[in-house]
């Protein structure tokens, strides 16, 4: 598409707004008093304006504008054409739209730059005009706004999904957004609005860019939620608000995708999560496409009828998105403009998140159990996997700990002489793909932490900073930039002995953190659990430190408890007891072994006494899911009252009886059971036992195992057992037969039922199903010649001749390859071979088998033996 030259070209590469020689374009309709920007060209005024906006938001609800796209389309923007290009092609129309919105009551108008990132503009061949398009947009908006409205530099998604969900790296995304932010900010917009974001990583990149390139301007970030209240990538409103709040976004909100009915709930949840201002821009309902045009059904009156609900939910800025026009804004304005915002009740406390969920840490919230097992220290195999760059053990530990009840996971991949940064990136990517609990990024390497923070979608907890000035200097800027929380170790070069000295360190570090712009509520203090066998008094100081931090700083506390028991026997009881005591002192979180059931019991019980479980609800719920084990099951004690069991026996007695019954069974019966139950591990030992007891090997095969597998076949036919059982039993039988075969062969050749050539046809490259069929047929005494997969017709015919086959079994998985079956059948007939043909495989049917004229069809591995036996009988 050819882009016409701009009407008002602006010079490229200017760094600041005040240095730009703004050349007024030949705009039409520029009314008296709305005209050129007055007195906004210096930093002081911009700062004043910014303050003005944020100050005003404290006292009144402001109005944003509505859709730009629909207004431009109504004025002739062709379908599929980039609206942003009209900043330079039809600035008069863009100006007119802005003016209509201001007239309707908008206090803030968005520049016409939703798609003006480099990547989006490149779709129209206009990437070289990025600066010009963005700056023109600000100039037009400013011309319309004068001093009656704030001009918001509008930024939409960059058009490509950001790593790890997409191919664009985080740094490249930041760069792409930075260029647009810089262009908008330098042209003099009053704030930056990042909107319609569906992925947390992308919005994080955009905010990081905005913080870097529009220093000092307020930043709004709005995400888009579907009707189920989550973003396309699974983020809920609380989590979005927490992540954006952590990044220091001034205005957090929601726009597009849904109408007001669905959006009010999102606003409410966000307002309960963050003290930042809240913005909402609903669509005019859910759209319908009529004659190629997207039509939004909700009228201005209908949208406006939700205005009060939005205000009550906590909105500070209300506007409209797709389908809304100045009429909508006018009605919304009449309802809420200038009203005092509803006071918020925000849940206080440290919050960390994954991509999908938020976890609160602090007084009154559930005690946070952070899994410690993703750590190579003292674990050779784990360290080796990391060294090889393999993440399988990391993933296994993440899964295991998540299932065991960890509420967050510490990720440490520090192995000497490895690329810790790269491994941290891969580990965080892998873990957040398969669990949805928050991560604690743990490393002594600042680079590794930064890499982890770049690929992490949520708000991470960083482990850790201490009182060493160099560590703070290196780590705090990254914590602030990526919006993380951090564990603060109350130690410098040494660990202070006394609690009061640890508190002093805490105060110093807190002061330092705040000087970097990190908020107090994003710190959690590790009060340091020392080994009780080495220094018994130290534990008391740790507990006292917890108390002091809570009392003096009001901050949450954390411990790694395992250290405390070092060097003593029965360590678990020591560190769990200590953790229980610490919870009593107000401890909020611990890095623990989540596989330790006693730890969970201690936490849930101690929480009762620490004000963390109102009405004992969590305790009761926990034991409903995890009923306490009876002390009578293991020991010899008898319960005072029998609860009854099988045949009037107590549970203990019933179990005992079952066990005895099983043990009383003969080896033959056990072999039979092992086959029926698919016991692949036990069968070989049982067969050996049977042979040692002198059972004839043929007897084992013919009179025990074969009836067993036939019995299973009957159960399969009755739909009491299913294919997974058949496969497991077939393998159990095969393993048993492998043990028996040398003994059977010693006693002479075994007569085979028949010879079958098995093959997956030419073109098909998968043969697992065919292999299972082979195993089953062998178990039933057939001679099976397995030719493998992708087998040409001539090889099948050759094998059939050489082995004097009774049957040819063919498997095919694809519609393109199944016709090879007919090729084989035709060739068999043509050459007059006496063998029959049986077919099977994913795409084959009985009808197809009949159509191509083969002799048998096996619908799955369950009936291959039966069909084959029937064929041989005919």
């Amino acid at each position, binding site marked *: 598409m050819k882009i016409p030259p701009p009407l008002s070209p602006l010079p490229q590469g200017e760094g600041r707004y005040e240095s730009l020689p703004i050349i007024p374009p030949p705009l039409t309709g520029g009314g008296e008093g709305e005209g050129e920007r007055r007195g906004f060209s210096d930093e002081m005024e911009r700062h004043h304006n910014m303050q003005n906006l944020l100050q005003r938001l404290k006292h009144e609800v402001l109005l944003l504008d509505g859709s730009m796209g629909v207004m431009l389309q109504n004025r002739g923007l062709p379908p599929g054409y980039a609206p942003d290009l009209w900043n330079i092609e039809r600035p008069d129309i863009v100006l007119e739209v802005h003016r209509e919105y201001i007239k309707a009551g908008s206090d803030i108008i968005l520049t016409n730059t939703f798609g003006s990132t480099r990547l989006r503009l490149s*779709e129209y061949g206009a990437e070289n005009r990025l600066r010009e398009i963005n700056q023109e947009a600000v100039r037009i908006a400013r011309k319309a706004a004068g001093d009656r409205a704030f001009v918001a530099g509008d930024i939409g*998604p960059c*058009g*490509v*999904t950001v*790593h*790890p*969900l*997409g*191919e664009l790296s985080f740094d490249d995304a930041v760069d792409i957004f930075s260029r647009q932010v810089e262009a908008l900010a330098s042209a003099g917009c009053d704030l930056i609005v990042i909107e319609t974001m569906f992925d947390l990583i992308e919005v994080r990149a955009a905010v990081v860019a905005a913080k870097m390139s529009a220093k000092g301007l307020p930043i709004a970030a709005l995400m888009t939620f*579907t009707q189920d209240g989550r973003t*396309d*990538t*699974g983020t809920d409103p609380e989590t979005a608000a927490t992540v954006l709040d952590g990044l220091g976004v001034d205005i957090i909100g929601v726009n*597009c*995708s849904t109408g007001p009915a669905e959006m009010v709930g999102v606003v409410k949840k966000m307002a309960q999560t963050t003290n930042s201002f809240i913005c909402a821009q609903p669509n005019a309902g*859910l*759209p*319908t*496409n*009529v004659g*190629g045009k*997207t039509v939004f059904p909700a009228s201005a009156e209908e949208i406006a009828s939700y205005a009060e609900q939005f205000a009550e939910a906590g909105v500070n800025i209300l506007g409209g998105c797709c389908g809304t026009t100045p009429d909508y804004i006018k009605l919304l304005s009449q309802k809420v403009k200038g009203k005092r915002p509803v006071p918020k009740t925000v849940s206080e406390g440290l919050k960390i998140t994954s*991509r999908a969920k938020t976890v609160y840490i602090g007084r009154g919230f559930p005690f946070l159990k952070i899994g410690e097992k993703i750590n190579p220290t003292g674990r050779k195999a784990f360290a080796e996997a990391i060294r090889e760059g393999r*993440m*399988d053990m990391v*993933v*296994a530990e993440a*899964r295991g700990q998540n299932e065991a009840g960890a509420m967050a996971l510490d990720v440490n991949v520090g192995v000497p002489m490895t690329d810790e940064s790269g491994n941290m990136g891969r580990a965080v*990517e892998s873990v957040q*793909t*398969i669990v*949805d609990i928050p991560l604690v990024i743990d490393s002594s390497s600042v680079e590794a932490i930064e890499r982890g923070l770049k690929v992490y979608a949520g708000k991470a907890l960083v482990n850790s900073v201490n009182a060493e000035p160099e560590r703070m200097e290196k780590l705090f800027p990254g914590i602030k930039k990526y919006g993380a929380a951090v564990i603060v170790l109350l130690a410098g070069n040494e660990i202070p002995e006394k609690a009061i000295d640890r508190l002093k360190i805490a105060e110093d570090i807190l002061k330092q953190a705040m000087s970097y712009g990190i908020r107090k509520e994003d710190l959690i203090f590790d009060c340091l659990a020392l080994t009780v066998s080495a220094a018994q008094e130290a534990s008391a100081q740790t507990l006292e430190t917890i108390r002091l931090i809570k009392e003096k700083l009001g901050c949450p506390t954390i411990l790694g408890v395992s250290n405390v028991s070092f060097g003593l026997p029965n360590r678990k009881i020591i560190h769990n007891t200590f953790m229980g005591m610490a919870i009593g002192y107000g401890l909020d979180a611990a890095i623990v072994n989540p596989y330790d059931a006693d730890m969970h019991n201690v936490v849930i019980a101690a929480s009762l006494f620490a004000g963390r479980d109102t009405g004992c609800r969590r305790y009761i719920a926990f034991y409903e899911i995890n009923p306490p084990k009876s002390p009578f099951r293991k020991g010899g004690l008898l319960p005072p009252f029998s609860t009854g069991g099988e045949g009037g026996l107590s549970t203990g007695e019933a179990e005992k009886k079952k066990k005895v019954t099983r043990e009383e069974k003969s080896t033959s019966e056990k072999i039979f059971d092992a086959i029926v*139950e*698919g*016991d*692949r*591990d*036990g069968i070989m030992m049982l067969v050996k036992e049977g042979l040692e007891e002198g059972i004839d090997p043929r007897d084992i095969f013919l009179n025990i195992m074969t009836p067993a597998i036939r019995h299973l076949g009957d159960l399969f036919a009755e*739909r009491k057992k*299913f*294919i*997974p*059982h058949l*496969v*497991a039993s*077939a*393998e159990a039988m095969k393993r048993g037969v492998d043990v028996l075969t040398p003994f059977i062969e010693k006693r002479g050749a075994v007569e085979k039922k028949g010879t079958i050539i098995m093959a997956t046809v030419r*073109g*098909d*490259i*998968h043969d*697992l199903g065919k*292999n*299972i069929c082979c195993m089953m047929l062998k178990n039933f005494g057939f001679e099976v010649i397995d030719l493998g997969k992708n087998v040409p017709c001539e090889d099948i015919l050759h094998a059939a001749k050489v082995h004097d086959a009774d049957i040819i079994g063919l498997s095919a998985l*694809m*519609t*393109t*390859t199944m016709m090879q079956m007919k090729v084989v059948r035709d060739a068999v007939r043509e050459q007059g071979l006496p063998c029959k043909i049986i077919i099977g495989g994913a*795409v084959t049917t009985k009808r197809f088998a009949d159509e191509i004229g083969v002799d048998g069809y096996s619908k799955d591995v369950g009936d291959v033996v039966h069909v084959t036996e029937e064929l041989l009988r005919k």
Partner: protein
Amino acid sequence: MIKSRGKVIVLHNIPFTIEEKKVLRELRIPKIDSLKEIKEENIAGSIKNAIEMAYSLIKGKACYRTFKIKEVMTDRVLIAESDSLFVGRNMVRLLKNCDYATLLVCTIGSSIVEKIEEISKTSLTNAYYLDRVSAWMADYMAEHVGSVLESDIRGNGYEPTFRYAAGYGDWALAAQGEIMRLTEAKRIGVSITESFIMIPRFSVSAVIGWERKTK
């Protein structure tokens, strides 16, 4: 705004969970929803192991692209990029009320296929369980992309049709060549053999139509 119109959207590291219930259905075990309900502990344990192994091996990826429908004929549906892709009566029936069609390709990667090959040398049962977990998860990735697409489709005022794949009905598997080309499937490591079989094996390709609402 149609996010994927005229350009390929590529997704990597698609988050996932493996539901026991879905795996049991894929294994054709009816009625039960949890492995705990399987009487034979060794079988339940092996399926559980297959699920855990799959967590370490699956790399969910997808690519998709949306096309404007140019014309609906009696035997085919035309898009600017191809006259020969959307052919057959079933395809016409699927897309006749649609303005757009999205082609998608998803995969769970090649590591799991290699693992199945490796395991099948020692235990066909374990290989079979992992194979079925993989089959479900390839479908899961397609469902995931389908749900992402659905919000885009509905957000633009349309209804999604069901997912339709080459090789079904009268849509020949030979269409795979064009599907791979138009979605740039090689970017997620998916290619096809001469028989149009996708490599890696646990990959899914399909079309979803953007249907005009009737009301």
